[in-house]
């Protein structure tokens, strides 16, 4: 299927069935809903990168980590930020080492005939002087890897173009060296917090997965799976309060990771059932704006 596109051999599929993905992820502590496991399964079958979008703290990064753990692959992470360029994302020539090499050549020349310029040029543009950055590293890896490009919406629109070649062809072109092709296809996850529209070209090359806040049942299960020592009753109460909080119009709705922090806090404090006063005292773990805390306290807990 992929041979016609000039892609490297995809190798055997990592997952046999949809259910295997789901139960596998659950096994490493990530409770996926149907859409998440479905898209991961498809990403493997179609050898396509996955673009994961959604509010902060809903387990987008964790998904990539869990898949890596599940498949026993090494996780290579590229954290995006404003001003990221190809020397940080793809590869960079080691200027200092090259400079040293040239200077060393000049010194040698005084005693005997040093290397000619041509030799020298070939020498300093060889792999020895190449610093592999995450993207190139993922392509060159011989062992199975999962590539995570985190918060891809933070880079500028022009920098996105760097990713295109690697995402569609799984290769990197270096003018001085030639094209480096992947020996095995890594699974690629891109996450985005949706602070800006990504380019069409990037979106077209990816499978799109929107991860939203989980529904009540899943959130309860997540709390129970990730917070050791929590009682079933408390987990249920936590999940229900968080759900109600999300229906309020807050500046920043509580995320899953904040829910987990809150649940852990409650467990450490030895709380068995949450009452209004107890919730009020720990609300700052869940909500990060004073205005939100006040509003939640007023609307939900009837204390002010």
């Amino acid at each position, binding site marked *: *299927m992929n041979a016609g596109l000039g892609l490297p051999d995809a190798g055997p599929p990592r997952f046999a069935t*949809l259910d295997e993905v789901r139960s596998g992820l659950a096994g490493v502590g990530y409770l996926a809903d*149907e*859409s998440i496991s*479905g*898209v991961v*399964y*498809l990403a493997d*079958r*179609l050898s*396509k990168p*996955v*673009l994961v*979008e*959604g509010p902060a703290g809903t387990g987008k990064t964790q998904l990539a980590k869990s898949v890596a753990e599940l498949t026993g692959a090494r996780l290579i992470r590229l954290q995006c930020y*404003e*001003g990221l360029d190809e020397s940080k994302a793809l590869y960079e020539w080691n*200027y*200092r080492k090259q*400079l040293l090499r040239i*200077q060393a050549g000049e010194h040698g020349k005084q005693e005997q005939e040093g290397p000619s310029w041509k030799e020298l040029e070939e020498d300093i543009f060889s792999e020895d002087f190449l610093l592999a950055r995450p993207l190139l590293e993922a392509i060159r890896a011989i062992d199975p890897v999962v590539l995570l490009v985190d918060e891809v919406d933070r880079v*500028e629109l022009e920098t996105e173009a760097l990713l295109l070649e690697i995402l569609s062809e799984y290769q990197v072109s270096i003018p001085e060296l030639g094209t480096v092709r992947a020996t095995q296809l890594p699974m690629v996850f891109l996450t985005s917090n*949706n*602070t*800006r*529209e990504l380019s*069409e070209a990037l*979106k*077209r090359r*990816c*499978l*799109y*997965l*929107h991860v939203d806040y989980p529904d*009540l049942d899943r959130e309860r299960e997540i709390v129970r799976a990730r917070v050791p020592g929590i009682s079933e009753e408390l987990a249920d*109460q936590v999940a*229900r*309060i968080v*759900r*109600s909080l999300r*229906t309020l119009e807050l*500046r920043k709705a509580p995320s899953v990771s904040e829910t987990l922090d809150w649940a852990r806090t409650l467990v450490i404090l030895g709380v068995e059932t*949450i*009452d*209004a006063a107890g*919730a009020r005292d720990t609300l700052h773990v869940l909500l990060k*704006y004073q*205005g939100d805390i006040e509003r939640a306290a007023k*609307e*939900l*807990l*009837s204390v002010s």
Partner: protein
Amino acid sequence: MLDLLSGFVTELRRAGLPVSLTEHLDAAQAVQHIPLEDREGLKYALAATLVKSSSHWRAFETAFEVFFAVRGGHGAAGDAGAGGDESDEVEPGTGEGGSRGKGKGGGGEGMTPEELAEMLFKSLLSADAALMNVVARNAVDRYAGMEPGRPVGGTYYLYRTLRNLDLDAVLAKLMGQAQAGAVGEGLTDLEERLAADEYKARIEKFRRAVETEIRRRLVEDRGAEALARSVRKPLPEDIDVMHATRDELAVLHRVLHPLSRKLAVRLARKRRHGRKGPLDFRATMRRSLSTGGVPIEPRYRHPRPAKPEIIVIADISGSVASFARFTLHLVYAISAQFSKVRSFVFIDGIDEVTRFFEGVVDPAEAVARINLEADVIWVDGHSDYGHALSEFHRRWGDEVTSRSSVLLLGDARNNYHASGSWVVKDLQRKARRVYWLNPEPRDYWGSGDSIVGEYAAHCDDVVECRTLRQLEHFVGNLT
């Protein structure tokens, strides 16, 4: 299956989603890996390959429900006859002729309204999804009064069904049950609130079950493509703000916040990057020390361009009001990009509302306060641009300087008052730029009592701004 898929993709494109050929191919490939009888799996496979933005999700879901509706007994998304526009079969159970009155005589399955209400109550209490679906089916049988062949989208049927079921009363009853079931002195406030939210979520689920049921029957009646035409809705960013329904306005409010945040981020970046200043000699030399004095990486100074000052003068009468609110919201959301923002609202009187936005975190709050507190009525509360503008000129005219950009918002429907266009002329002389944003379609300009032409002569640009997309585009170009 492939035919069905192309029909589906065509429908998505008609609804305004940008689906490329590669994405279509991906979808075709993806469905091969999904077992056919797995409807949810199919949905996610198609969503992952075809929809690349969460704001398009609703449009996708609607189209999916129509094209891959669960058919009668055989639950799978069978592909037989989905494209047939003429499939006129109606379920025997719905047997209501087009001429018969509403609600009565529907050949339901022998359930009285009381039994139905009881069953609904039970299903909601136990959150039993299967029972909910049964109730939904019966309720549609009994109350919707569907008439075959009518080219409607089903909103009316939904309304009719739900009105008869009286979900508010059911909620009250559920809450009563919860109160009674509590031990001791009843529920605390917190518990009550949680229970209410829980039941509301269940009722919402039931509502969706009813909607799905109605859609399913409509598809059976008229075929997928015909129905898709009736239920197609514009994407949030393409909704005409002036004629938006209440539901659509709610959708707009939801997308406005992320939209303004995105705009702010984009503009902040545009300011910081993009342009390079002159060579920073000191920094370049300092940098070159690590490469033995060879200046490999030149450094540049960051230019700091001056920020413009914005004056917004908005008509907030009647139908233009929601548009003015959106614009104010958007302008203030990116107010960090301007050195100063001042805002004025008018109907026939004019008032400065800048103070409402000071120290407020969320512009939406301030916008809400404007409606209540701004003093904008002079005589009768009908738009009078002439009076409002001359009043502006008298009180604040001197504060417009060569650094200010003035945005005038309104449809320029002046109720045949004097236009006061000399004010705009004077503003143009003093200000850097004067723009007029008109939320009406360009074709209507100058018709009836619209005098936008008179003002246009003195504006740098007059822009048609009917949708959020156009608005965002305009505001983005301001800085």
